[in-house]
């Protein structure tokens, strides 16, 4: 499997109703899937997702000043809430954020006076009557047009974008800075966080992810490579270098090693839908934090603790730097994240049960039920188990998404997208 293929999926996101599912890939393309309307004849058959629109969002660029390529890979897609018939989404690569409008056209005007049906101009001398053009149905066409381009605001690589609950602003975060944008204004943004040291030699920590609070438009969080989360309030000051809250778990001295810091680096942070909790993903665990308790998480889930003894090898092959994302289900009762060997894990916060599933062609015939998987860590391996040493570390599930209200999940496994739904009856 070639890691440099352009169709490797780099981000997955449902829109606010779950009707649309967008994916971005390494080649700068966005593919949007739309859920079929459930037909009256087959009530029990859930709507399936089909391709709705495909467009090239970003192109590769070259930074002449630094003699470096700027990748066209789509790092994140975020949908705006729907306000009219058209759909809007933000997509970003390392440097530039774009606002795309996706709209349908299913009618076209016919009967122009000055043009004929092919669009050629008619000789005015031949026109003897006037008519009013009418709209006639045509085959559905979905067009995507770039409405705004927000460029030249990031020196470092953008890792996150987040739409504010006011729907007028959004933020973009890179390794060292976070900028606040107004959707209508592309030639300037406000810098709201800047952790760049005066002397780059003193740099020891970077921003890894950021997100707005789902309801309070003045609040946002950002995570760091040292395993900390900061909650900031934009009302406090223009530059939010001072946090309102600082979340960090004390280190466990018995587990200390040269890799401790690396595995504590947070790769993703997500508010719960309720806005009361945040979830963070580091290399080996997922943690749930209560916004009212800063000194430790309220829940910690082991994603693949059997890798703890392999950290040196994983450091050597760079897997230890893989950035896994995590997601909440619609009711904040279940959380999901990916792992290696095309495994992904779900944790039920109420029952404390967890499951490991695999996204692969062999195991996923349509409408087949996924079988839980198990990794054997030592000793005797049972028939269905897979041993740690047999895991395929090139098959990593970094990006997953959960439908906002139903039990439908999207899982990106390299260049394949899997969509799983709850079994009906």
């Amino acid at each position, binding site marked *: *499997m*070639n*890691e*440099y293929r352009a169709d490797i999926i780099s981000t997955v996101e449902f829109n606010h109703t779950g009707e649309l599912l967008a994916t971005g890939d390494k080649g700068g393309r966005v593919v949007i899937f739309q859920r079929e309307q459930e037909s009256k004849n087959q009530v029990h058959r859930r709507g399936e997702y089909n391709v709705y629109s495909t467009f090239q969002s970003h192109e590769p660029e070259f*930074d002449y000043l*630094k*003699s*470096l*390529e*700027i*990748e066209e890979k789509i790092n994140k897609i975020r949908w705006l809430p729907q306000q009219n018939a058209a759909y809007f989404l933000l997509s970003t690569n*390392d440097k530039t954020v774009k606002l795309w409008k996706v709209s349908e056209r299913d009618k076209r005007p016919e009967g122009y006076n000055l043009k004929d049906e092919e669009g050629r101009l008619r000789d005015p001398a031949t026109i003897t009557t006037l008519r009013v053009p009418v709209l006639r149905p045509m085959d559905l066409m979905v067009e995507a047009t770039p409405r705004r381009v927000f460029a030249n605001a990031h020196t*470092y*690589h953008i890792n996150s974008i987040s739409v504010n609950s006011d729907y007028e602003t959004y933020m973009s975060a890179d*390794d*060292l800075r976070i900028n606040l944008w107004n959707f209508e204004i592309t030639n300037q943004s406000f810098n709201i966080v800047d952790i760049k040291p005066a002397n*780059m*030699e003193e*740099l*020891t*920590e*970077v921003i*890894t992810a950021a997100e707005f609070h789902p309801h309070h438009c003045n609040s946002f969080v950002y995570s760091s*490579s040292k395993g900390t989360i900061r909650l900031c309030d934009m009302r406090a000051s223009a530059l939010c270098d001072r946090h309102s809250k600082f979340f960090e778990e004390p280190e466990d*001295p*018995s*587990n*200390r*090693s*040269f*890799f401790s*810091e*690396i595995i504590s*680096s947070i790769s993703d942070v997500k508010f719960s839908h309720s806005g009361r909790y945040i979830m963070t993903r580091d290399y080996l665990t997922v943690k749930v934090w209560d916004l009212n308790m800063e000194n430790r998480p309220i829940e910690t889930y082991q994603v693949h603790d059997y890798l*703890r*003894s*392999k*950290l*040196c*090898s*994983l*450091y*050597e*092959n*760079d897997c230890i*730097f893989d950035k896994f994302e995590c997601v909440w289900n619609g009711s904040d009762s279940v959380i999901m994240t990916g792992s290696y060997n095309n495994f992904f894990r779900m944790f039920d916060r109420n029952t404390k049960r967890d499951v490991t599933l695999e996204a692969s062609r062999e195991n996923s015939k349509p409408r087949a039920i996924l079988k839980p998987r198990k990794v054997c860590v030592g000793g005797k391996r049972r028939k269905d188990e897979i041993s740690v*040493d*047999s*895991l*395929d*570390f*090139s098959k990593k599930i970094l990006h997953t998404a959960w439908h906002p209200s139903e039990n439908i999940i999207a899982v990106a496994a390299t260049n394949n997208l899997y969509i799983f739904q709850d079994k009906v009856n």
Partner: protein
Amino acid sequence: MACCVSDTSATPEPTQGAWPHRCPGTMFARGLKRKSAEDGEDVEGGLAGTQATPSYSLQRQSLLDMSLVKLQLCHMLVEPNLCRSVLIANTVRQIQEEMTQDGTWRVVAPQAAGRAPLDRLVSTEILCRSVREQEGERPAPDVGDGRMPGLVPGLSAVPSAQALRSPQSSLWEVDSSRENRGGFQKSLDQIFETLESKTPGSVEELFSDVDSSYYDLDAVLTGMVGSTQSGHGSGLQAFTSAATPPPGSSCRSDLGELDHAVEILVET
């Protein structure tokens, strides 16, 4: 070239600060055992497990080498991942700090302006000689190439005398350690400067001089021969060879499938 992976044959010290970090079991693959009391004069008494035993030192050195190579390989066509670079650099600093506490920190100074490579050879030779003296061996008055005889006796007289009396850490201080340590710090800083504004050739400057002798030894230990001098052009190729696991016994048992995975990863 003498072996410079020196032991702390010095007085064992209690683990310092909040750093109960002598846990090679967690750091590296399971199955690797630290050397125990059979080290003899190298390790003393019950605190053997908390000191830098030879195998731990080797592992740590290997990790340091690996990290430095990783930083170097950052400079490929696309701008390097800053988060990854920062994490690797922090790891290098941690190792450096620990080795400084152990007194095993070797001089790994990229050229300060005008500093002849021989200085570096000479000073590492002195470190080694002092270690041998500590272990009771008779120091051979071997000044390497002998090209700069004036320097060596001057430098050697003080450290070796002191070394007999005091732990290796004071030797480190005598040997103008600040400058050398600063030299390494400077090299880390240079890495970040080059990340900021990449200047072609800076990476080679950074490591070229260090590597020739530094990696000779470690190439034997880690099997990374020839992988570090590639510079820009063969970034991927260098990555492949660097990603090839070292022949160290520690990680081999766990790398069977990872080898395969890594090959897949770097295949273009």
